[in-house]
């Protein structure tokens, strides 16, 4: 998909990083019919996504130029879900700089990174380990015998 088309997109969600988290977000968004765009550095993955008919931008989501190419000006939300805390933090900062009113979702592995992400302007932070831990504890307390 061309950069001009992306810039013309309105009210879409930008997903930065197509790993496990990113792919599940995409799954959900596609299910609900929400328009979205994926930013990914791996050319193999972007080719696969293009084949699937999704909007893709090949590049590093920490860069403002790539975010602009992905149409951040018109986007309603952005999810920084690469498997690198530092890159996510950087993307959150960049995105918040560019847009004061965009909804920013991201992931964190460490508690202290979470605090930094909040300071940087993230609206929603998911911590995979904490979520998994909760699920496991739920399962354990369920089987009270």
């Amino acid at each position, binding site marked *: 998909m061309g950069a001009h088309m992306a810039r013309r997109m309105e009210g879409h*969600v930008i997903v930065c990083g197509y790993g496990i988290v990113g792919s599940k*977000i995409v799954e959900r968004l596609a299910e609900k019919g929400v328009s979205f765009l994926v930013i990914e550095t791996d050319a193999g993955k972007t080719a696969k996504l293009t084949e699937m008919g999704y909007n893709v931008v090949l590049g590093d989501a920490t860069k403002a130029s790539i975010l602009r190419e992905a149409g951040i000006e018109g986007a309603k939300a952005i999810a920084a879900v690469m498997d690198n805390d530092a890159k996510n933090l950087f993307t959150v900062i960049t995105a918040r700089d560019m847009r004061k009113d965009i909804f920013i979702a991201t992931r964190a*592995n460490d508690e202290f990174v979470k605090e930094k992400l909040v300071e940087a302007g993230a609206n*929603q932070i998911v911590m*995979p380990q904490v*979520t998994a831990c909760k699920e496991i504890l739920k399962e354990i307390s369920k089987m009270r015998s």
Partner: protein
Amino acid sequence: MPKINKKEALDTAEVEIAKEALILLVAVIAIVAVVSVWGIYNVSHNFRGSIYYTISSLIDVNNEGFATAIMAPLTAFSGAFDEIVAIELLDGIVKVMLIGFIVAVFIDALTKVDINSKLNSLRRGRLDGHVILCGYSGLGEQIVDQLSDKKKAVVIIEKNPTRLEEVNERGYMAFDGDFTEMSVLKKAGAEKARAIIFCAETDITNLMGILAARRLNKDVTIISRGREEFSVTKMQRAGADLCIIPELVAGLELGAKLAGI
């Protein structure tokens, strides 16, 4: 489990060394006694007296007993002074040896006692309806912290020495070993456990653990963490009741949130 075997071998080796030392000690004492009896008998020609001196000096009754013992029979043999000095010297040697030996054995026993493993084996007997956590990773740590907050009995199996030390420092009950081996799981009480959680870094390791755990205990709840999506069905087929991929759960959660904006 290779590690335990090595340790046991070490223990028996040390016991053998102690046995040898003991035999040597007894032999030395016996020789000293024989020489002493023979020496005194040569001078005094009093067999009972020489045995009496020897034994009393060996057992060290000289503070009171030895002195009085000498006083009476001293008159019975003349020129016995040198022999008595010799006996006193022998007496000192045997005493020092014995005391040294006892102290050495005591210190050896003290240093050999692994307090944690002793405590663990004490508590192991009482394990019932507990939760076993295999692999003290980041996720494992969180689970253990929350379970112990809820006053639930947790046992950890970890083979990484650094992490194991951390576990011990925090006062959790831990076993050193590879949880894919049934003997290790058994030690942690897998047969009576309520739940077994696998939190190792790789899916293969967790899968092996699930297989072993299910063979040991048909009714236990088995929960595993996974990395790849395709591991989930494999883990379930191996006997896991629940398989969680943290990133996947997180992704679905975020996706739902983002779709709802």
